[in-house]
């Protein structure tokens, strides 16, 4: 259409009154048509997937169902946090795998956060050599694939360790356990009779700290008086349990491994796969966390520090009340994302056969039972649940922390 006809149409239209829109140009009708079509295509797609799968499964004379989860697995697992044997069911295999995933993920998250925060702060240090070293740490780690790091630690670094017969740690007589190519034989903590009291004290300390800090905050809001919250919390969480621990007579002992003819015995064996995976996961993720921390601190405008100094706040309260709350708002969302990434990345353990969810459930159990569809579905659903839970928490946190403007 050219400009001329448009003009004529417009004139025509003015004479005839408002033109009726063709039904197809009505945005409401158009969008419902598109959506109905999309649903139709989707239903057809899903239906053909399901029917194809059903046909293929029946051609292989397999059925679909989760009954197999009660069958005995018939294979061994090298590390299990719960009772497990060959006679245990596939469902137990799933639980063992999930617990091992969570074990490596949680320890990895703690380590990665500690290292990542230190490196991130070191990156901002005025000390030239410290900030350069931190920079190259980050660049070296995050530009090399995680799987390669796992291989480097498992097939490279751990292979350099001495054999099981002559492990490291003999000079300390096994006080820190023995480290060899077969993993770390750690001293095994043995709980005494009264240990539960210390545990209870820790729990009590945490709960009490929450109450104290919220009370202190309310009081400061109301009266302006400050309260030494940090020291009280430290006393509650560390001091009280420690005192109780000593009073009840140190109810925790260690069973130290002993060197035998074929290597160390006793103690608590830690798999070399676990060590390699944990190291690789936590240092790889720590590089990303370091960048997040650095970006978060840099994101706070210098004017914030200056303004709070101008208001008469000393450096300590400036950091506590002005800088950290704002930096955390920037840091926490990508940080949770990294935690989630670490959890998902722990599935790379399948490459070195650390017995976590993907390795023993989507690997060994799948081969043993031949239930591809069910097992992959369960595995994916598990990871999906973990990440949905995290993002729900994230949304809640973001809403709570979001700046309320105007």
């Amino acid at each position, binding site marked *: 259409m050219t400009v001329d006809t448009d003009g004529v149409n417009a004139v025509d239209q003015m004479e005839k009154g408002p033109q009726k829109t063709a039904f197809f140009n009505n945005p409401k009708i158009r969008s419902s048509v598109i959506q109905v079509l999309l649903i139709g295509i989707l239903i057809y797609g899903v239906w053909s997937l399901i029917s194809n799968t059903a046909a293929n499964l029946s051609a292989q004379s397999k059925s679909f169902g989760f009954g197999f989860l009660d069958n005995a697995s018939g294979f061994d697992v090298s590390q299990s946090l719960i009772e497990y044997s060959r006679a245990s069911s596939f469902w137990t295999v799933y639980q063992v795998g999930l617990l091992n995933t969570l074990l490596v993920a949680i320890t990895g998250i703690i380590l990665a956060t500690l290292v990542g925060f230190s490196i991130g702060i070191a990156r901002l240090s005025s000390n030239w050599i410290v900030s350069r070293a931190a920079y190259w740490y980050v660049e070296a780690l995050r530009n090399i694939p995680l799987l390669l790091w796992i*291989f480097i630690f498992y097939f490279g670094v751990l292979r350099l360790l001495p054999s099981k017969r002559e492990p490291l740690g003999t000079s300390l007589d096994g006080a820190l356990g023995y480290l060899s190519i077969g993993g770390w034989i750690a001293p095994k903590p043995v709980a005494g009779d009264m240990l539960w009291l210390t545990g209870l004290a820790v729990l009590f300390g945490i709960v009490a700290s929450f109450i104290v800090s919220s009370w202190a905050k309310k009081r400061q809001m109301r009266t302006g008086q400050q309260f030494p919250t940090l020291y009280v919390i430290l006393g509650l969480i560390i001091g009280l349990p420690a005192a109780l621990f000593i009073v009840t007579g140190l109810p925790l002992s260690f069973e130290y491994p002993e060197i035998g003819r074929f290597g160390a015995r006793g103690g608590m064996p830690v798999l070399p796969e676990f060590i390699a995976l944990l190291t690789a996961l936590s240092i790889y993720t720590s590089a990303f966390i370091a960048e997040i921390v650095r970006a978060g601190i840099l994101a706070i405008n210098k004017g914030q520090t200056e303004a709070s100094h101008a208001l008469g706040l000393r450096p300590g309260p400036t950091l506590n009340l002005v800088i950290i709350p704002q930096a955390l708002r920037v840091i926490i969302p990508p940080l949770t994302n990294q935690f989630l990434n670490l959890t998902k990345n722990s599935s790379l353990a399948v490459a070195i056969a650390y017995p976590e969810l*993907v390795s023993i459930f989507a690997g060994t159990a799948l081969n043993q039972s031949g239930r591809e569809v069910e097992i992959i579905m369960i595995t994916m659903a598990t990871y999906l649940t973990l*990440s949905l839970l995290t993002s729900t928490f994230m949304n809640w946190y973001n809403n709570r922390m979001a700046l309320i403007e105007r």
Partner: protein
Amino acid sequence: MANGFVRKEMLAQMPAPAGTKGPLHWLKTNLFSTPLNSAATLVALYALYCIVPPFIDFALISAVWSGESREACATIKQGGIKPDGWFGACWPYVGANLKLFIYGRYPVDELWRVNIVYIMFAISALGLLIPTLPFKRQNVFFMFGIFPVVAFILLTGGHLELNGFLIAVFFMEPSYSAFWIDFAVTTLFFAAIAYLLAKGTDSDPIPNLRAVFGVAIILVAVLLAVSAPLGLEHVETEVWGGLLVTLVIAVTGIVASLPIGILLALGRRSNMPIVKLICVIFIEFWRGVPLITVLFMSSVMLPLFLPEGVDFDKLLRALIGVALFSSAYMAEVIRGGIQALPKGQYEGAMALGLNYRQMMQMVILPQALKLVIPGIVNTFIGLFKDTTLVLIIGLFDFLGQIQSSYSDPTWASPVQSMTGYLFAALVYWFFCFSMARYSMYMERRLDTGHRS
């Protein structure tokens, strides 16, 4: 004021007070300004001392640079020529296997085909990435339109057997001529729908028909190209390997994920609730599961999803998984760009009377995509690193090929695996680090300071 003193000549410049310049002063202010700082310096120096000298010793000083077989890289105890206690990299092993690492087991006589693909890709990618080079539009067209087809033909040998288009399966025996009959019927069918749609809405049918026939002609060109007997030897994907597979997966992932990602991002921002819901579910699903389970799914479950008789090779299955996975991530990156645009851009476009397609195509997407170039490059870096995961499902990418070379007894020695991993790490690091630097450079260049 008459007898005030006015200096007639300039004073000679004095040297700075001792201790405020020079290397010692720099050391003092930068490394040892406070006790804490000094301690940090010492700790950092000790850490560097623990890592850097052994690394340099292994990679350069103690390393072996020439040799024919494992004897050159093994100690006497291990049956070689090196003194006991020697520990260094074995570079001749890398040199001897370099072809394997770059091309996999691709037939030696056909390597020129891979080389052409590498060169085409390098030239086109540089043309796209360097902002000052001209012909961006043509280059994008080449990279996303022509290059994939040419690369496909060169790498596989082309000459695909075509035997059924969209509707043939319902009523025809599959064959090459049936394919073209089917293609013509399908085209006419779509043309008829387009024509009737235009008639039913009282608008001009010519543009609709032009669009349908345009797509059909492009498809004919592509299909003719991939099915023509060009006399190239067919190369199975089983013999592809090394850097070739890594690049094929990474580039296919990114090229496929861009258009899908744009559609998903637009869908997620759409006003239509069902479209939005479907896009959100799709994106969150793929982002919520680890890539390795996606690869397991595509290698184990994809064959079950397809009708009987349809079978993909392993590489294609992995490619589908990677493309779906990365398009979800790409969608989120692009959505970030779309959301970063001020509302005035939409309102301005609507005020000009542009319809949705025109508004997105001419106003929103060009700005949004430019804004997220760093994000796209970062996604590509992630994807490039993630390609290593395909070795778990039995494909030989760069890392997988290096690992598989350990089983070759010619170079078997205790330092072989360390050397291989070191080489892999250097290559990955070089690729990823340069891309990361590029992305930072673009970020600075694009940051016009106009964003609110």
